[in-house]
């Protein structure tokens, strides 16, 4: 396997809650991300799955410091980018880019598509206006749009096309790492596959590395090499695609996989229906955060937070079942 491109160590992101300033001294936090670690190697795709609110987006955004991490390190190309100045962050932006979930909300409705794609070039490169324009056309071409789309506004495009624009914008500076935050969730099934194919093609052509965030297990499985499963701000299981899907270890992963409806019900697993909802990240359960919903709960789960355990073949799990 190639060398690591980005390494996240014990990353924590806690949002202070807007509190009654005068009458409530005690400060409370939303523990959106609560100590996660992972590595993404060059030219691979790490999938990040989990249910709504488990902290996937927060993780993704904090890698670019769009949300400042509360603690932990993010080592990108050998540098801890949580500690560098905003000026130095420019270099990081050049190499790390984000594709947003909502193709409708992430494009400024008042700018033409050409301008939007040109913007990163304008800010981060010294290209001449003409070169920039050429590059914009080239990018449009790359994502399957045409040069004549450049002076149109986002609202004239369909969702899928907008997502292509978002991808072109992210590609503009030839980044090494692309964080795709639910890049296909908002799209229709038939469009989703177009974009997934595009992303894969781009990875092959340009040697990109992806952090692919999604809540859709089958999409993540399709696109990723390795997968991390998040629950309530923590990674509970991390493994290669085959390892994780064929032999899910963590009860949560098992439940998740079994719950996903499939059209091929012949080789159906027995559906595991979890009880209750995800607890609030403000006051997460003690010990293993999953114990409130776990079907294999043991007494110690309530008390001790399980550590990540290497189960071989790059498969890690944080569960007391595996000692």
């Amino acid at each position, binding site marked *: 396997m190639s060398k690591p491109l980005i390494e996240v160590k014990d990353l924590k992101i806690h949002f202070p809650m807007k509190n009654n300033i005068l009458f409530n001294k005690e400060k409370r936090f939303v523990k959106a991300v609560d100590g996660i670690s992972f590595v993404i190697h060059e030219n691979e795709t790490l999938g990040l799955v989990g249910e709504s609110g488990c902290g996937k987006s927060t993780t993704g955004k904090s890698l670019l410091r*769009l949300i400042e991490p509360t603690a932990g390190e993010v080592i990108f190309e050998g540098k801890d980018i949580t500690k560098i100045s905003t000026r130095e962050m420019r270099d990081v932006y050049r190499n790390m*880019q984000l594709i947003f979930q909502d193709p409708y909300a992430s*494009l400024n*409705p008042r700018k033409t598509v050409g301008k939007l794609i040109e913007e*990163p070039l304008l800010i981060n490169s010294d290209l001449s206006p003409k070169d920039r324009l050429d590059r914009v056309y080239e990018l449009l071409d790359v994502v399957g749009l045409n040069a004549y789309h450049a002076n149109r*506004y986002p609202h*004239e495009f369909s969702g899928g096309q907008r997502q292509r624009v978002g991808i072109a914008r992210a590609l503009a*500076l030839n980044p090494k790492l692309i964080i795709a935050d639910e890049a296909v969730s908002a799209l229709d099934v038939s469009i989703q596959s177009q974009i997934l194919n*595009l992303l894969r093609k781009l990875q092959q052509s340009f040697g990109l590395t992806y952090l692919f965030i999604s809540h859709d297990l089958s999409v993540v499985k399709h696109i990723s090499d390795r997968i991390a499963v998040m629950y309530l701000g923590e990674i509970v299981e991390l493994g290669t695609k085959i390892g994780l899907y064929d032999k899910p270890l963590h009860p949560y992963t098992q439940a998740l996989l079994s719950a996903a409806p499939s059209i091929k019900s012949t080789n159906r697993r027995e559906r595991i229906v979890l009880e209750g909802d995800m607890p609030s990240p403000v006051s997460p359960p003690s010990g293993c955060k999953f114990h409130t919903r776990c079907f294999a709960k043991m007494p110690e789960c309530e008390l001790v937070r399980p550590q990540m355990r290497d189960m071989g073949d790059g498969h890690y799990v944080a569960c007391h079942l595996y000692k």
Partner: protein
Amino acid sequence: MKNSLQIVAEPVKVVAPKKSLWIDAWKRLKKQRSAMIGLTIVLFFILLGVFAQFLTSHPYDGFNTDKILISPNSEHWFGTDDQGRDIFSRILYGARISLWIGFFSVIGSIIVGCYLGLIAGFYGKWVDTIISRMFDIMLAFPSILLAIAIVAVLGPSLFNALIAIAIINVPTYGRLIRSRVLSVKEEEYIMSSKSIGMSNSRILFQHILPNCMTPIIVQGTLGIATAILEAAALGFLGLGAQPGEPEWGKMLSDSRQFLTVAPWTLLFPGFAIMLTVVGFNMFGDGLRDALDPKTK
């Protein structure tokens, strides 16, 4: 590289035909009947004001003892007032004043309000606190009393009435833009601008400001209507136009005592105010429906 591009290319047709945002908005606006009526009324009054001297042969001023309080007839369409002046002419010339005050006071409020609102919304924290409290303070006063006090300080005149109206409306625009900034700031495309390393000022002026303008334009159009009414109220209280100036509100207050003997002296200026204001309101409503249908 070129090679790989070929692999990727998978051209798709664009769904909607090319339109600029403004052309698009104009097209939607054109479909709104009431907005077009409003626009027509506004343009009508603008033309009346601009071409006043060609539209009437009677002067709007002077003291004509032979013609005092003549009821409307073929020569004086709207009759004459207690100085023997032609009311029709005065209304034509008055259109200039009202439109002028309405337009420029709103421009003034918008410039100041936008500036303060942008800063407050974007930088937040204590800057926001100070500016917002300032707005709160201004809004806690009944605006007309505040305007009266301001004119009292500056001395009554049309220009000072304009200033007063501009000042009292600053918080309206300031708050509007502040709240817009607060919401636009959270939009994903702002996050996306940050993610390419864009500077704050660029984000503020290139991305946030343009996206805040729509409600401001709408509010501004409606604001002209309000400003015209406020100017008329100040005129009515004798705090705007100076004696002789054919301001509509002033005309009303000058003729108040003729309610029974010469009602036309009150009817027509009142109608003029109402019609102009209706025009701006209809146009503004239409603009809102056309520009941001969500806030309907």
